Structures are given as C-alpha cells and as structure tokens.
C-alpha cells in the first residue's frame, strides 16, 4: 500500500493508504482525528472544513495523493496552536462567548471556515460584510446561524 506523508497539526504523519482515499477518511478512520465531521461527502455541507496551508478546504473532496509532504493540514484540534499562548484561538473564544453550539456537530467546520474567512478579507484589506457572512456555506441543522454571525464579528476583532 502506498505511503503518504504530510504535516498534521504541527506534526509529520505518514499513513499507509490507497492514493484515492479522501483526506477526511484518512484523518478520521486511519489517524483517529475526529474533529472534522462527515455531513455529505460531496463538498456541500462543509462540516469537515479544515485548513491546508492556512486556507479553508474540505478534506472529503481531496484524495490523499494530492497532498505533499510539506503541506500543512490543520484541523479543529490544531487550531489553538496556530496562535501564540496556551489558550484557545480567538474564534473559539468568541464561539464560547456567544454560546454558539447546540448539538455541536457542524461547529468545528463552522469555526475553521470563519477563521479562513476573516483571514481572506484581511488579505483583501477590508472588513467583513453581510455579503461575506451570507456566502458562508456551512450547514447548521440546529439553526445557530445568527449566533455564528455574531461570533465571527467578535472573533474577527480579537484576531
């Protein structure tokens, strides 16, 4: 079986798995990293949203062979370590402040998408707009959407 090496939450990992297995299953079923959730498998619900080299991506739709040894994957488990200090990431803190989660199933993906969105608008040299928030695709079946919007604004201020 082919070996694949990549960076995961700050550590180098190597897995023995077929080339075409999507990264979501490599994370969850092979490595036991279960923060990214399955909600559709076709890149529409966004529950598995994680980061690759600092940008949001959906590991359900990327074969493990498409990732190289230097590519850095960050899941919700590794998000706090991307900022200085021992605490949480400011976006996680904002999620706590607004008590966003209900069942919590979509929230790792929501938070990872939110962080990437804030970074994206920063790169574009602007602030988050209602249109940016409207364009977030992550499904929340519990309907926490309004608190998500509030938390992103709070998190963005602290980032």
């Amino acid at each position, binding site marked *: 079986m082919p070996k694949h090496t990549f960076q995961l939450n700050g550590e180098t990992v190597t897995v023995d798995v077929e080339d075409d297995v999507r990264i979501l299953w490599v994370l969850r079923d092979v490595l036991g990293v279960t923060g990214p959730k399955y909600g559709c498998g*076709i890149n529409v619900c966004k529950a598995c949203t994680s980061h690759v080299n600092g940008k949001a991506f959906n590991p359900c739709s990327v074969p493990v062979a498409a990732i190289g040894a230097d590519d850095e994957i960050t899941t919700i488990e590794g998000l706090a370590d991307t900022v200085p200090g021992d605490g949480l990431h400011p976006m996680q803190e904002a999620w706590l402040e607004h008590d966003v989660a209900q069942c919590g199933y979509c929230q790792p993906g929501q938070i990872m998408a939110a962080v990437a969105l804030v970074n994206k608008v920063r790169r574009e040299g602007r602030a988050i707009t209602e249109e940016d928030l409207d364009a977030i695709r992550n499904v929340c079946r519990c309907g926490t959407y309004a608190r998500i919007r509030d938390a992103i604004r709070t998190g963005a201020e602290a980032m």
Partner: protein
Amino acid sequence: MVAADLALGAAPAHALPIPSVPQVPELYDLNDFLVHCALPTSNLIGITIAEDGDAHFALPRMEVGQGITTAMAMLVADELDLPIERVHVSLAPARKELLFNQLTGGSNTIVSMYTPVRVAAAVARKALLDAAAVQLGALVTTLTIKGGVIFDALGNSVTFGQAAADAAPTTTRKVEVRLKDASQQSLVGTPQRRIDALDAVTGRKQFAMDLDVPDALPTMVCRAPDLNGTARSVRNESAVKEMPGVTHVAIIPTGVAVRARTFGQCIDAVRALDVEWNGGTVPGMSADDVLAELRRAQLPLVVPKLGAAALDAEFVFHFRSGSALEPNCAVADVRDGSATIWGGLKSPIDTQSKVAKALGLPQDEVTVNVVQGGGSFGRKLFSDAAIEAAHASKAFSAPVKLMWHRADEPRQGRVHPMATSRIRATVLAGSVISFEQRHTSVPTDFTHGLGERITAEVAALPTGLANLGFAETIFLLTQELPYNFGVITQLLNEPKPAPDRFNTSSVRNIYSPDVATANELMVDQLAARLRKDPVAFRRTYLKSRVVRRVLDRAAELGEWGRAMPAGTAQGIAIHKEYKGATAVLVEIDCRPETVNRKVRDAVTGPRVTRATVVVDAGIVINPKGVEAQMMGGFMDGMAQALTYGNHLVDGHFLEASWDNSAYTRQWNVPLDFRCEVMESESKEPGGVGEAGVAASMAAVACAYARAAGRMPTEFPINFRAPLHFEPKSYVPPVPESPVDGLDHTF
C-alpha cells in the same frame, strides 16, 4: 408557486367574540400525559458523589443539542451548592426498569424531570449533611454548605468527598427533603453557557462515529432505487470483496451492507455493487398521487357553507426530511449470544427490544449505550441505524461502525409526513362563529410507542389502527386553537394508517407547524374580512392570557405596523403548546431584486430580513438555552415555509443531499434576529426544544401573504418552482466524492 387571492370584503363589524368551549390541551396536554407515564419510575434515579466530591448524574434522556444536560447540571448544582463545573451529567444506557421514563420527546425532559432531579439532589445533600454531622460531631442544623464543602459553626469542615464515604445508605429508606425555592437558587433562571461548549469548539465532543470501539470498522448500506426497496441478490459480491479496504459484503433487510477500512472505501464499494432489487413500497407514486389520496380521505366539514359568510381554504404540506446533520449511525458489536450498541438514541429501551428481536436474542442480552447526538429533530426516536448495525455485525461476525450516506437521508430516511389542512370559518354578524379544521395526513410513525416494548408492540400492530390511535391521541393532546371562534373542531385523519409505505417520524413539533400555519393564515383572512388589523384582531379574539402577553410583547419589540416599502411586509403568528406560548413577528422582502439575488448554487427567493420571537416557557432553567432553541426553531420553521421540501416522483424522492434540500443557509438568515424570553406567570416549567417552530413557520407564511398579496396554500412555497438541481443517480445510490477540493480553498 401556488397561491390564492387574498379576499377582502364582507361587512366590517364591532361584534363581540363568541366564546369557545375549552379544548383538551387546555386541561390536559401531551406533556401531562408524558409526565404521568414517567411518574411511576421517576424516583429510580440517583446522584452519585465521587471521592473527589464531584456529583455525577446519569440522565435517562438523550442530549441532541437541546441543552438538557446543561439544565440538569444547573438544577443539581443549585440543590447541592456545588459549582456547576463539578456536576457531571452523562447519558444513562437503556434501563428497562424505567418503562415509560426513558423517552426523549415532546419537549418533555425538563417538564418531567424538573422535580425528580431536584429531589435526587436534595436526597444526596441530606445524606451528605447527615454523614458530615457525625464526622464533625455537630448538629445537622448547624451545618452550612459552600462550594462542595460542609462547615460546622466553629469553622471545622469536611468536603463532599469525605462525607460521601459515610453518606451512602446501606438500606433503602424513606426520607423527606425540602427543595430550595427560587430565592435560594443561584444558577437556575440565569443565562448559562452549555456545559459541553468547550468540547464542541475544540473538536473533543464525541458523537457515535467518533468512538474508538476496537475493530468496529466503517460500514455503509447500498440502498434500493425505490423507496424501501429490498435486495434480492448481489451479482458481483466477490469482485466487490476484492476492492481495496473492503472486508465484508452481505444482504441485510434494508439493502446490502459493506464493511471496509475507511468510509471512503465503503462509498466506493456501494457504488460498485451490482444488485438485483425488489420494488419499493410506493411504486410509481408521486406527490400529486398522495395529494389525491389525502383529499379523498378528508373528513367532512359540518357547518354548511354559508355563501359570503364562509371562508374556505385548503393547504398542502409536502414531505420534508427530518434528518439531522449527523447522519443515522450506530456502532454494534454482536457476538456470543449478546450484543452491544452505541448510538444517539432517544428511545433506548425500544432500541434494546427491537435489536433483540432482530437478532433473536433475549432483551437482557442487549446493552444499549446512549451517545450524544448531532441533532435529532425527532429522527432519533427511531433506532433504524442501530438495528441495521446489529444485522450487519451479526452477518459479518465482526463489530461495525455503521453510518448512512447523506444521499440516503432525504431519500430513504424518515420524513415529516405529507398532509393537507382544510379549514372553513364562518363569520356572522361581525363575529367568527365557527372554525373547523380537517387535517389529513400520511401516517406519522409512532411505533416507538412510549419508548419501551409494550406500547411499541401495540403501536406496531399490523392493521395500523393502533398507530392511528396513537396519532389521534397525540393530535388531540397537542392541538389547541386559542381563540374565541365559537364552535371549534380540529380533527385528524390518517388514511391507510399503517406507517409502512413512507418512513415518517414525529419531526420537530409534529403536527403543529402545519396546523398552525393553516390556522394563522386563516386568522389573517378573517381579520381582513372583518377589516381589522391582524394584531388587533388576534388580541380581541384570543382567549388565553399567556398568548396575549407574548403577542403584545412581540408586536412592541418588532415594531408592528411600521411603514414598509411595497413588496415587503410584516407578518405575525402565535402558537400555544408545551405549557407556554410563542409569538413571532417577521419582516419579509419579496421584491424582485431580493428574490432573484444570486448566491452561487443557492436557493435564495424571498428573504426574511427581521425576526422577533417572544416566548413564555413557564419557569425557565436557562434563558440562554431557551433563546438558542427559539433561534433554531425559527430557522427550521422559516425553511419549511419557504424552501425546504422533498419531491416524491415515481416512487422515490428526488433530493439526495444538502445541495438539493434547501434547508436554511446563511444567505436566508434574517439580518436582525431577536428573541425575548418573557418573565412567566406560570409556576411550572415548559418545553422549549420544539416550541419555536410552529409560530415561526406561520409568521413567515403570513408575512409572505401580505407582501406578495396572495395567500400561499402549498408549502414550501417554492415546491412547484422548477427544480434547482439535477437529481442524482439512483443506481448507484450515492454520489462519488469529488477530487477537486484543492481548487476551492479560501
């Protein structure tokens, strides 16, 4: 878009409302029924104090996001004078002896457990104080508790942990305790964050598929192209078994199960399977066939149609998926004449019984562990995935972690049943003298009974008449039209009562969203007929003070009556259930530039721009949690009014994932959402998990009618619009995962 013209006219009048006799739920409702069912065994719970002095409570209910573990922790912490961080609430496994007292439904957890859990905590407190009195050599009456430490008058102390060593009684005895009153509670009634929030935002919160059960490998089921079709034979079993990662393939009652190293390899195997299928349960049927069936079975209206005095309407509510974001899933380990199940299960005793039956085992040989669920919305009342997992584990002689593919959820999963609601209201001499509602529905499956074996088996008797009996009872105990409209009758009929053609369940709020939407649209019609403002009309005719209070507050907070541009409008609706009431006021924008706004691959349409929800939920444990449930209920109700439905075409549903099912997404969310939890005059707690849905759906429908100038009569209102998607294949039944994810990073 199906709509009827808003009829204005008839005589304005200033007549008095004609009183209506009380309806059943005013005197005895579903929550009373569930509380009484739970009562005989409600003392079979206990609080455990560990050596470190922390309190542990195994809750015989299921947490699915509704916030009951947090509320329970607050109640226990207050009663024990222990910091909430030191109260640990877990979910009890199936406990057969609890009988009717281990069902999570009807928004009944707080209603049924509010007193028992406080009593359990108070008993623990008394035992700790008694033990501490001996240890400290002091009178119990001189002891005080602070932060889990017991002090005597001299300042000597023992911790809960120390006292607990001598506190556990060795015999059963009767004790009397006095519960704290509200003034002595410091947490109850104050906004608290969820106790599992940190786990949720760090990815540590574990759902069934996150559990590490040794050797439980991913398992998926290849399902038939037709609704409820079954597998006859597999033509390429050996080839599929040779596929990478695949370990097992077997026919089970609901399809062909495959077990593999990863779920990705299960998906590949499901797609590769060549199966000979038996037909489904509704061959060739489409939504309009079901509609014709329902119309033929509508119970007759009694009041004759009196020309201009009568307002008649019929409303159609289509199927919609009740699925949560976490798909149906369960872990099963069947071996050596016993079975162990792990899953998000709201009727675990019923699961235990059904798994035992499926495997031919005694019920006591089945252990059912309850795991927190990623949403439920009624879906997890049923044990579909647990039963499938048991079958698969038995067939494979190996543990399995079974999960449905998303495509299976709207297509084969449980749905809110399709229904019609026919209404005739009569206006005479300026007053409403009658209001008749005939609700006709595809049967709602209640074969989980009251969560245990006896009632479940009765409900599942073959003719369906027992299930109909359950359905009629639930309808009778939940539906209440709180207006003085003279003679009010609300009747349910479920033709073809055996719930064996469609997979249905008590989707969040059961009948109420549809019933309330039909009613409140008619109330607006009546107001228009009598030339009254919708809020003023409701105020005049409401017979319930609790409803009038929430209505008034919503109208005030939401600025009812403010000037709105053409093509936009306000809408307001009320609902009374769960020992409380809700009022929802929304503003909707139906102008073409809004309706036709473009978001990539999105269903946009009319946008609710502002929503105000006011709820009276009786005694409130955690107002922050109540607000969360109202927000969720609103997003749910809005979707059901505008965009969220399942299309039945030729024996199967078209929708197969979140890109097909247009549930509320950020581009639909009101930019201004506000919820107020009113100070209640009630002395008992209400239910909140479902309470927000009905009035929300109704308010959005009412606002739409006023903005568009046409009363919608079919829901979701975009049901007849051209499909926004190309239906996915039925064979194979699940789509391939894309490979281009790196082209869509941001």
